Each structure stands twice: as structure tokens, then as C-alpha cells.
């Protein structure tokens, strides 16, 4: 029996070491390649071997059965690995064969107002999501329908919660890109708005002068920004002059400057990459969170209403729904199946609780008993 125990333990050490080496090898790759590597067949064999050894441990080691901490740690590892496998793509394929058809992952596009009784899920290849999904589907293009949820997801509202702006000066930022310059092709100029008012700026690597003609200061109601500043600038190159008004809108403070007009003789700048001017201040337009108010309707009745934000997904109907993007009045939600989710959570609690029990509480309890014994003896 001792030989079997030693072989089991030695095999366990080898598997743990192999997984550590695999983790380091995976760390040198992008996450999608690391996933492919460490879930490939040879590595799946290693994960399964670990599970097998953990289960074998319960048979050959009495301590696994008798000591709560050790049992919890190892059982927790089995639950985490098993739960993760059950929730993986392969796990969903197995579920489908067993008659439980459910997409592991998909995207739902939701809009305000009532829609159809079902919510279609599109596949994960949808990265740059087009607004006209119907046209995209009929054209047989980028996206495919992977599942149909038997309830309706309705968007009640969407907002971006911004940090309050800081009290620093407004900055005039110029961001220029020179494709023909191989070394440091990007040039960024920054000037405080008040200072830019006083003297014209010569834009680096050009013979263009920028002068602020007039500026309307920002207005605040307490800490809230009511009116953004408006700036009129004059751009001069030789005999050519161009006036530009910079009036950033909420959430779109970057305004392109028409320097192409001044540079007919330059191959550097075209409309799409012409220099941009940015009127901003530190901490401006920094999002604190994205909040989508969503309701779930089934058979015409509202069953759940929730606000989905980063770190706060909605859990309903066997899926977790995450905020994934917004454009116009559309919000993109990512839906992931909750298969295996509970097993992983229970596994996490077992592993952590077991480790704390075995390595902290048991030694503290034993030390206290020893101390009490010494006290009694003396």
C-alpha cells in the first residue's frame, strides 16, 4: 500500500510540475493561443490525470477521508476542474449530445421598447458589431445566429457614469501623425488654454502657426460641467490662413483640424489622418461605469428588471448577461452559459477554506493544546 501511495503522490507532483511548466509556456503566448495550447488533447490528458489522481487520493490516503482540510482542498480542485470542463465548449457539445441544447456563448443586441418574444444570440465572431444586423444576416456575412432565448430582453435605458472633472486648467492638445517620418512619427503638443491665448504656437515639424483667436470659458454648476469651452483658432502657413472653431460635444471632444487645406503640397496628411485638436482637462470624460437598465419579459409579463454594469452581470434563464458595448440606442450584451458555474464556486470555497483550515487553524489549535498541556504539567 505504501508503494501505491508513493507512486500516487509522485505522479501528483509530476502532474503539478508539468502544469506549472505549461502555464509558463502559455504565458508567453496571446491568451487565445494559450487557451488552445492548454486545452489541446495532450494537455487535456494532463488535466484529466490530475483529476484522476485527486480521486485516487481519496481511495489510497486515509488522510483524505479523515482530515477535513485536506479533503476539502482536493475535492475543491476536482470540482473546479470538473465544473470548468462542463462549462467549456466541449462540455456544451457533450450536453447537446445528452439532449440539453444550449450555446456556451453568444451576443444579444437589445433596443428600447417592445420587441419579439424571443432574443436571438449571435456567435462570438461578432467583434465590430454592425447596427443593421438584419442586413448582415441576410447577406450571410460576418455573424451567425447561435441560439434563441425563450424570453425577451428589453433595454430600458443606458448611461455612462463619468468621473467629475478635476479642477486643473483646460488644455489644448494637438495630436499629429507624420507617416513619412520613420522615427517618432507622432507628435503631441500640449498647451494650457490661457497660455495659448497669449502667444501663437509653431506646430512642431511644420511651418504652421496656431493662434487662439477667442475662447469662451467653461461653465460649472457646482462640480457638474454645464457648458464646455469653445475655442476659435487661426492656422497660418505662409499666405494661407484657416479659421477653425472647436466646440466639443459631450463624449466627443476630439475635433479634426483642416490642416490638409494648408498642405496641398504634402503627401503626409489626408482627410482620414489629418491632425486632431483636443480640448480637454485632466480627468475629463473618464468613465466610472457603464450602466444598462434591462428588463426581462416572458409571455408579455416583466419577470426581472436589473441594471447591468461592469462587474454586475444579470443572471437569468441559465445565462449571465454582461455589458459589451453601446452605440446609438443599441446595447450589446454578451451572454455566457452558467453550466458548471455552481460547481466551480463550491470548489473555490472548498479549496480556500480547506487550505485555511489545514494550514492555519489546525496548527493554531494544536499549538494552543500544547501550551495548555504545558501549563497543566507545570
Amino acid at each position, binding site marked *: 500500500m505504501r508503494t501505491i501511495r*508513493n507512486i500516487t*503522490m*509522485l505522479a*501528483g*507532483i509530476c502532474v*503539478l*510540475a508539468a*502544469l*506549472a*511548466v505549461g*502555464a*509558463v509556456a*502559455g*504565458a*508567453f503566448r*496571446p*491568451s*487565445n493561443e*494559450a*487557451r488552445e495550447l*492548454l486545452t489541446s488533447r495532450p494537455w487535456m490528458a494532463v488535466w484529466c490525470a490530475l483529476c484522476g489522481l485527486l480521486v485516487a487520493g481519496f481511495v489510497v490516503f486515509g488522510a483524505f477521508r479523515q482530515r477535513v482540510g485536506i479533503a476539502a482542498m482536493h475535492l475543491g480542485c476536482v470540482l473546479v476542474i470538473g465544473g*470548468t470542463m462542463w462549462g467549456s465548449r466541449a462540455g456544451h457539445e457533450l450536453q447537446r449530445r445528452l439532449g440539453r441544447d444550449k450555446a456556451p*456563448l453568444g451576443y444579444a443586441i437589445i433596443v428600447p421598447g417592445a420587441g419579439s418574444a424571443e432574443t436571438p444570440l449571435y456567435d462570438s465572431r461578432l467583434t465590430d458589431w454592425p447596427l443593421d444586423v438584419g442586413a448582415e444576416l441576410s447577406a450571410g456575412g460576418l455573424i451567425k445566429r447561435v441560439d434563441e432565448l425563450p424570453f425577451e430582453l428589453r433595454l430600458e435605458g443606458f448611461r455612462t457614469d463619468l*468621473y467629475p472633472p478635476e479642477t486643473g486648467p483646460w488644455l489644448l492638445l494637438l495630436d499629429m501623425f507624420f507617416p513619412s517620418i520613420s522615427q517618432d512619427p507622432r507628435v503631441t503638443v500640449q498647451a494650457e488654454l490661457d497660455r495659448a491665448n497669449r502667444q501663437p504656437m509653431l506646430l512642431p515639424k511644420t511651418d504652421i502657426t496656431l493662434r487662439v483667436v477667442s475662447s469662451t470659458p467653461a461653465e460649472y454648476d457646482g462640480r457638474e460641467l454645464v457648458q464646455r469651452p469653445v475655442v476659435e483658432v487661426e492656422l497660418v502657413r505662409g499666405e494661407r490662413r484657416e479659421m477653425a472653431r472647436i466646440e466639443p460635444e459631450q463624449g466627443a471632444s476630439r475635433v479634426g483640424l483642416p490642416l490638409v487645406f494648408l498642405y496641398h503640397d504634402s503627401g503626409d496628411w489626408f482627410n482620414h489622418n489629418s491632425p486632431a485638436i483636443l480640448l480637454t482637462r485632466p*480627468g475629463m470624460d*473618464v*468613465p*466610472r*461605469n*457603464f450602466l444598462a437598465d434591462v428588463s426581462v419579459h416572458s409571455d408579455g409579463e416583466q419577470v426581472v428588471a436589473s441594471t447591468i*454594469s*461592469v*462587474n*454586475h*452581470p444579470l443572471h437569468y434563464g441559465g445565462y*449571465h448577461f*454582461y455589458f459589451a458595448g453601446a452605440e446609438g440606442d443599441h446595447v450589446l450584451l*454578451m451572454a*455566457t452559459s452558467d453550466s458548471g*458555474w455552481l460547481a*466551480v*464556486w463550491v470548489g*473555490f470555497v472548498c*479549496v*480556500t477554506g480547506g*487550505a*485555511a483550515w489545514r*494550514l*492555519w487553524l489546525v*496548527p493554531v489549535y494544536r499549538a494552543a493544546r500544547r501550551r495548555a498541556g504545558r501549563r497543566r504539567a507545570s
Partner: protein
Amino acid sequence: MAIKLTPQGWLIYATMALYALAFVLLAARRREAGWTAYAAAFAAAVASYVYRWVHVGHVPMQNVFEVLLLMGALMAPLSACCRRWLGVGLESADALVAIVVLIPAGFVLPEAPQKLPPALQTPFFVPHVLSYMLAYAIMAKAAVQATAQLVAHRRLDRPGAYERSAYRMVCLAFPLLTAGLVLGASWGRMAWTRHWNWDPKELWSLAAWLAAGVYLHYRLITRRRSPNVCAALVIVAMVLIVLTLAWANFDRRFAGLHSYAR
């Protein structure tokens, strides 16, 4: 490499100077004065951390600069507690570790405050980072003991004495490493849709956890007969932790979901 001529910078340098003084005094076996310097270094480190907290307006655990400040503050009480309750010594080396930890914060890393991105606004944030930083500080102490085992094992009256100290430290750190990993995975499910995203930093931290697991199992199977191999395994785990904290955070080839921590 630049000197920070700011209140934050001066507080970091004061902490480093006091840790250096504690190192010298403890190495010279002037224990009382050494512990006084240690206490002063802890006070300076706490002042530095509180200043940062007030300056940025949130718990300063967002980037490497802030977590190194935290680790610098943790080393002194950790050293004192380990001496008092676990009988683990080599406090002078702990002071040296604290100085090494604070060098990047004092001279290399930028101190510009950053807003917390949406993903970091969760109750998981503080326990996840705190578990890891405590675990890393304890593992650093374990690595010091393991190094002492490898360097001084022939001169010891009781062979394996330092390895036993290293084992106590690993036993203290392992549940924290586990909690850090588990809290991170749970948070990943909430923020990034999956428990495990195969991100480089996740994989480095998994490798460190597995290495600590290999050590605990190997020590059990050899029944403490190979203290030097065990000590070497502790050092391997610590090397992986250093790589997780330093290399994985700054090398661009490891860009991933944790890139905001730079």
C-alpha cells in the same frame, strides 16, 4: 531612473533609509535599536501609504507603484509577528527585502494618480490584491529562509532549521495565494465573463501556486529528508512570484487583461 522630489518621494526615501538603518543595527546585533528603527520605518511606510490614499482618492492598490508601497509597509509588522508567534528570524534580511521592493517605487515607476477603471470598482478588488501582496511578502520571507538553508546548511547545529522556518512561512502564504487566485477568478467571472481567461498574468500566478503545491507535496513525500531540495523549490516558487509581479507587468509581450496594473 529619476529621483522623486515630491512629498510621496520623500516619504518613500525616508522609509528606505529607516529600513537600511534597521538592517545595519539588526545585523550588528543591536536588537533594541534595530527594532526601534524597524518601528520607525513602519510608521514612515504607513504615512507614505496613507498619503497616497488621500492623494488618489481610492484604496491605492491599482498599479505596481501602489502595491509596492503596500508591500514595503507590510514587511515590518510581518517580520515582528513571525518572530513573536512563529519563531522565524532573519529580520535584518527582511529589511533588505523591503528596501529592494521600494527601489522601483522610489526611482523607476511613475507616481501620477490614475482613476479607477470600471473593472476595478468591485468588492473583490481590495481582498484580491491584499491577499496576493500579503502572500508575496510572506513568500519573500520564506525565500530568505530557504536561501539561508542553502547557504548555511553545513554550519548549522540542527540541519534543516531554516527549511522548517521556510515551511512555516509557505504554510502561512499558501492559503493567501489560493485566496488571491480564487478571488481573482471569481472577479474575472463578474467582469470578464469567464473565471479563467488564459491571461499571461493569470498563468504566471497559477504557475507560482502550482510550484508552492509541488513544494508542499514533495516535503510530505520525502518526510523532510531533503531540506535543500525543499529550499530550492521554495526559491523556484518565489522566482515565479517575482516574474508575475515584475516581468509579467512590464514586458509588452505579456500584454493582456491585467495591463492596467502597469
